[in-house]
């Protein structure tokens, strides 16, 4: 088990390096291969209508005229140890993990992102709890009561849930519960440490809207998995032992059903941690998703690069956790 984890850890580190290479290549190598010289590249990092001197200063500061491998080494080093951007007399310090320095906001990228992480984290984890509990419960009941009114109704609802886009359900939810009947008025992020109650109350709508989509998906997945598991031979064996039906369902059936769902859950959560873009935009929650949208709108390359790296990091880590969890759950993976 320990060797398994160590092996996965090394693989994860390797994967992160590959991710950094690809991201670096997209931002610094491909423009060059497409024929841009370092001066033209530098113009994209300055504000609008820059003077030639300002562009040259940026080019020098970012070291864009250095060979590519050296640039990549500096890029990696900055992430791990932080870096100083020097140009003539002016020095800018960018502390680790330094994903770059935005010349448009005149700040390092990371500190700007850090304040947005708790928002996305609160949104994603809260929604995840709701959809996991809700979706899986509905899926189990549906499977056990296959063909009944409950099953048909909930699966119909699930179909609706999967089909409706968040920006639609989100706006409807806001219109109904924030304006018409202000049960959850002015949705905005309040940090958990400031006021846990307000934090939860303001996130209820986004949670439900985001969870609805996934809950529908998970309900269908769980139902299908449960139906398959309950017709397995080992379920018949469990019954032949004389176990109570409750034990058969929850100890033997659910255990086998949940294993693949854990995998999908890990991936989904990892993906969401990189920014629940549509939900955040719909509810104007300033998390990583909204940060990304603004960065793209402003064509702020260092910010886009930073958020790309962070999102990739979350997904890779989620992958690692899923792998380890899978080995804990399924003994066949361990050996």
């Amino acid at each position, binding site marked *: 088990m320990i060797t398994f984890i160590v092996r996965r850890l090394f693989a994860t580190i390797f994967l992160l390096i590959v991710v950094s290479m690809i991201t670096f290549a997209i931002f610094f190598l491909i423009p060059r291969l497409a024929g841009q010289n370092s001066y033209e590249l530098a113009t994209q990092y300055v504000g609008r209508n820059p003077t030639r001197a300002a562009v040259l200063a940026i080019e020098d500061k970012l070291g864009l005229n250095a060979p590519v491998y050296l640039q990549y080494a500096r890029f990696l080093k900055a992430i791990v140890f932080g870096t100083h951007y020097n140009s003539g007399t002016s020095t800018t310090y960018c502390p680790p993990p330094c994903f770059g320095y935005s010349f448009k906001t005149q700040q390092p990228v990371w500190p700007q992102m850090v304040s947005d992480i708790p928002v996305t984290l609160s949104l994603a984890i809260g929604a995840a709890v709701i959809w996991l509990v809700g979706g899986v419960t509905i899926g189990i009941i549906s499977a056990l009561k296959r063909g009944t009114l409950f099953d048909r109704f909930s699966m119909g609802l699930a179909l609706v849930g999967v089909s409706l886009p968040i920006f639609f359900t989100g706006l409807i939810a806001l219109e109904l519960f924030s304006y018409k009947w202000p049960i959850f008025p002015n949705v905005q992020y309040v940090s958990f440490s400031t006021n846990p109650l307000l934090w939860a109350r303001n996130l209820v709508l986004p949670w439900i809207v985001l969870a609805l989509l996934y809950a529908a998906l998970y309900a269908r997945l769980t139902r299908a998995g449960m139906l398959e598991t309950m017709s397995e031979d080992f379920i018949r064996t469990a019954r032949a*032992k*004389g176990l109570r039906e409750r034990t058969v369902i929850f100890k033997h059936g659910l255990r*086998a059903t949940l294993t693949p769902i854990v995998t999908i859950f890990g991936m989904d959560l990892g993906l969401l941690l990189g920014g629940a873009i549509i939900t955040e935009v719909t509810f104007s929650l300033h998390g990583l998703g909204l940060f990304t949208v603004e960065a793209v709108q402003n064509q702020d390359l260092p910010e886009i690069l930073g958020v790309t790296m962070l999102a990739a990091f979350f997904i890779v880590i989620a992958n690692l956790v899923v792998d380890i969890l899978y080995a804990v759950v399924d003994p066949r993976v361990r050996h």
Partner: protein
Amino acid sequence: MPDTLLEVDDLHIHFPTDDGLVKAVDGISFSLDRGRTLGIVGESGSGKSVTSLGIMGLHHGSNARITGHIKLDGEELVGATANRIRELRGSKMAMIFQDPLSSLHPFYTVGAQIAEAYLVHNQVGKKVARKHAVEMLGRVGIPQPATRADDYPHQFSGGMRQRAMIAMALSCDPELLIADEPTTALDVTVQAQILDLIWDLQQEYHSAVIIITHDLGVVAELSDDILVMYAGRMAEYGSAENTFDQPGHPYTWGLLASMPRIDEARLERLVPIKGTPPSLINVPSGCAFHPRCRYAGFTDGRSQAEVPELREVAPGHLVACHLTGDQRRRFRTQLDLEETEASAARMTKGDG
């Protein structure tokens, strides 16, 4: 002292489906004494598995219609509450299945799965149950049972898995053990070991055993009585000697002819039964076997028109066939003759 443990009387198990009524079991009666073994034989779809699952209350589908009687130690199981049958399952009657790998839960250790069976029916702690599980594993011939108990099913070989299944089934000393094709998924070399094990344990526990199989070799080795099923009905029922030495039903003749034998030095050719088992929704009229039967034309059309009653052809030997005793003897002799001639012809050809 022969004491009857299980009595099945006129058992019907029907499943209503969208395509029609599936008569999986249609009028089965037999009785089984403690310490005796009954072999139920038949092709796929003959209803032999459903019969055993019905006894255990494991036939799936809550819409199944069961009529008739199943009496276990005098207690009526047809119409008993689900909870009562559950209590009997695993304690008084136990079952082992065809494929031991898929029948064991992949995520729990073998020891835990056996201990679980003991825990449901006995008021003991986990430690006692675990000790018992290890003991059972040892008894079914698993080496180093204390360490192997912590292994998962995928770490066991096929034969060991079936041993573990047997250990699980026997962990509460059941009086009735049902083995549904216990050796089908195993290597030939392991098959004999498993059958020996079942035999030994039966002697030890003095339990009643039902072996369900399509392999007459298995039945010949273990059974005291044999029940041949066809299309959910009884074709022949009698002691093993009678059924093998004087088989009365043309279907049994077919089964015997299609079985390889090593006790006879002849180069006998295996004769398959022509055709396929009938659908249990549209069972042929009259004798369900008549479309495949060579002798259906000798009964003045009764095979096509009337369902044959079970008749006693010898004491305790029941056959459901319209052929008269004389006809049966004549055709049987004729068959033997044909076989001998055919093999003799092959041997001459082989020599030349």
